[in-house]
């Protein structure tokens, strides 16, 4: 079977715009959480967010696309440019049907949508933008990236809330295995506007703390909800052989295993599905828990959810059996962008042999039995990572990443399936 490798990253995060700025900030433990500035949040119980600073859309997005795109899509288009640039891919040399786009979405381009709802209800239907029909909807990032880069291959948009970034990458790997050479994947989200804020308040899961350093504390006994941020990562996934053929400048790692599960219906008495997702992803990668050097946890920061995740991790790896980290303590939860950013972070950790820290949780609750990487990075030269994510409503996803420096471009010699080449 073909191997799916990551050859390009484009990161837009609250604590760093661009992959290296983000990575530097993350290793330094610099947070992007702060009081909201995008809109006046003083009336709301939650006032903190991870806002992207210094993104000037006009520098990244062609002017003709400005009126038809939301802030979210502009960031996604920029991150896609960076990821494709990072991959060093000359797209003109790839077959047009051999390139796809698969992204995650959660609530769509909410700010654009709010403006048009306001236009409709305060002024009348003739004031609604001609772009509303597609600018707000869940497929917009995939559609705009596909058009901008003339990618005509199989694409997709998956919605599983915060788990979506992993599900998108799992789906991208599916396309690679069917013979598509290159898929632009991941997720970018941005819903920092009042109409994006109020539904999240209604979920009851957001932190109402005012101190950015005490607001989002996954695996702490003081966990009190999460902080939401904007951004994410666009990730170029390629068939290993095709990447080698075109001389891709680097391979960050292989998507070695993927699995997704649903939690059982409430009241069924059956266990939640996160551990099964992790087990299935490991089995898919033909690895055992012993082979995993670091776990990037979902880290909800909600007591019951933290407990469930800690049970899954310590059940699978044993008490304090593997280093666990939650760098999203520095960005907040990015919804459809969250798991994609975690995957990018994990790949950078594999590249540089260092586990980024979880900030603001110096004293994880001991009964969780987790070896949480707190305060400062840990130089343990990880070669494989398990990334976990959960989406609202009971969605679980797990991705296994592996360094490939021993044989970066080799196809998997364990199976002999011959993929169909796209015409």
């Amino acid at each position: 079977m073909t191997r799916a490798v990551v050859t390009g990253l484009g990161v837009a995060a609250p604590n760093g715009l661009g992959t290296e700025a983000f990575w530097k900030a993350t290793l330094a433990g610099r947070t992007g959480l702060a009081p909201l500035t995008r809109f006046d949040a003083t009336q709301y119980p939650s006032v903190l967010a991870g806002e992207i600073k210094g993104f000037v859309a006009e520098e990244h997005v062609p002017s003709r696309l400005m009126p038809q795109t939301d802030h979210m899509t502009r960031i996604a288009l920029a991150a896609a440019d960076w990821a494709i640039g990072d991959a060093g891919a000359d797209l003109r040399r790839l077959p047009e049907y051999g390139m796809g786009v698969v992204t995650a979405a959660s609530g769509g381009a909410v700010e654009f949508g709010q403006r048009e709802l306001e236009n409709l209800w305060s002024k009348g239907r003739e004031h609604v933008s001609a772009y509303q029909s597609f600018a707000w909807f869940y497929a917009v990032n995939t559609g705009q990236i596909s058009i901008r880069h003339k990618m005509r291959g199989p694409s997709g948009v998956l919605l599983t809330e915060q788990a979506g970034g992993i599900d998108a990458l799992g789906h991208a790997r599916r396309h690679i295995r069917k013979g598509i050479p290159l898929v632009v994947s991941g997720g970018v989200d941005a819903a920092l506007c009042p109409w994006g804020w109020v539904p999240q308040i209604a979920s009851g899961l957001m932190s109402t703390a005012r101190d950015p350093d005490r607001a989002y504390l996954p695996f702490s006994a003081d966990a009190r909800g999460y902080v939401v941020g904007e951004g994410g990562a666009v990730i170029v996934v390629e068939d290993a052989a095709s990447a080698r053929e075109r001389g891709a400048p680097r391979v960050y790692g292989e998507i070695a295993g993927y699995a997704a599960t649903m939690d059982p219906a409430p009241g069924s008495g059956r266990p939640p599905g996160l551990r099964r997702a992790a087990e299935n992803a490991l089995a898919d990668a033909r690895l055992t828990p012993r082979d995993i050097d670091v776990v990037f946890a979902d880290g909800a920061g909600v007591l019951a959810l933290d407990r469930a995740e800690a049970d899954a991790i310590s059940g699978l790896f044993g008490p304090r059996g593997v280093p666990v980290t939650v760098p999203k303590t520095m960005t907040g939860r990015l919804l459809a962008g969250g798991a994609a950013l975690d995957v990018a972070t994990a790949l950078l950790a594999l590249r540089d042999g260092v586990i980024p820290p979880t900030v603001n949780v110096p004293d994880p609750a001991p009964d969780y039995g987790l070896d949480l990487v707190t305060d400062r990075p840990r130089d343990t030269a990880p070669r494989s990572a398990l990334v976990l994510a959960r989406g609202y409503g009971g969605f679980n996803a797990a991705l296994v990443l592996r360094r490939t420096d021993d044989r970066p471009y080799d196809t998997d010699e364990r199976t002999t399936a011959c993929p169909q080449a796209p015409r």
Partner: protein
Amino acid sequence: MRRVAVTGLGTVAPGGIGVKEYWELLTSGRSATRTISFFDPSPFRSRVAAECDFDPVAAGLTPQEIRRLDRAAQFAVVSAREALADSGLDVARLAPDRIGTSIGSAVGCTTSLEREYVVVSDGGRTWNVDHRYAVPELYRHFVPNTMAAEVAWVAGAEGPAAVISTGCTSGLDAVGHAVELIREGSVDVMMAGATEAPISPITSACFDAIHATTPHNDEPERACRPFDRSRGGLVLGEGAAVMVLEEWESARRRGAHVYAEIAGFAARCNAYHMTGLKPDGREMAEAIDAALQEAGLPPESIGYVNAHGSGTRMNDRHETGAFKRSLGDHAYAVPISSIKSMIGHSLGAIGALEVVACALAIEHGVLPPTANLHEPDPELDLDYIPLTARRQQTDVVLSVGSGFGGFQSAMLLTGPEVRS
């Protein structure tokens, strides 16, 4: 290669709740489009839609479900229950994580979101909407992946679940996604389909703004006229279709009734325009070619094409171009129809409703017609099955979809014996 059988069907559609009513409408050639009754349509350019007469209590939903679920989610749950019962599958005997869920939707819980927006914004008067008036379910509506969770719970499914949202190809793509999951071995059973309940002022306004919807308001039942020279645009619809898909051998082993096999699926993008289509239909043709290749079938084997047929001139030309490009001379021989002429265009749901129609066409040997096709556009020279259903045994059926974002998808269904 593992194969995929369609073993259970469930629908909520304009004209009737349930598959029996759905098929009766489709074969009658009647149209369920009417003047919009859900809100006052008078300010809008297009004032017709295909609405479902859906009573959630009569449909068997509990008060908790009715409160918790957006209309689209309600459609999905009701359809899923019908499909599961129809399949005769005893899910209690299956491993829960071998059952997955794939639900398509283009605009999610938009009706509930708009209703709640109006409340928290005081009728659009305030940008800083007021959280104190928000219903507890608001976040469930905000992230429509919750609809897939609801369907999963119907079947006790604990395998992979997702909402697939690729605009108006969401329905086809969600079923295609389900097919891929069964084939790759991740699951053995999928609850697969799509749902949409988009008939609300904001949807009407955004389609008005680009003149995508028809201005033919005077004869509502004649509003949607795909392939007719007088067509004026699409007519919004709503509804859901959910299917039980099973790995072929296990379905056969348990003696399931197999409606059809899903033999091929492919999706492509035109990378051209978020809403525009080129007349040559090049990328849709490519999707059709790829689906045929996957199914191992020649173009000449296709006995019926369920068209996208949205009722716009741009679509009609695009699609006709695609059929000629991919099917060659056979495009002129094969019967083609658009059921959107009868049930409107339910955006993300319609692709799944059309797959169900294709399975039923194979099952019953009847091809649904294109209603309201009195005077074919002279530009279009294929057989679009005008007005009345056609009795014709068909073993291979093609269904296509085209959506905002540039998405083009094609699926091939075959009779249960064709590839055995």
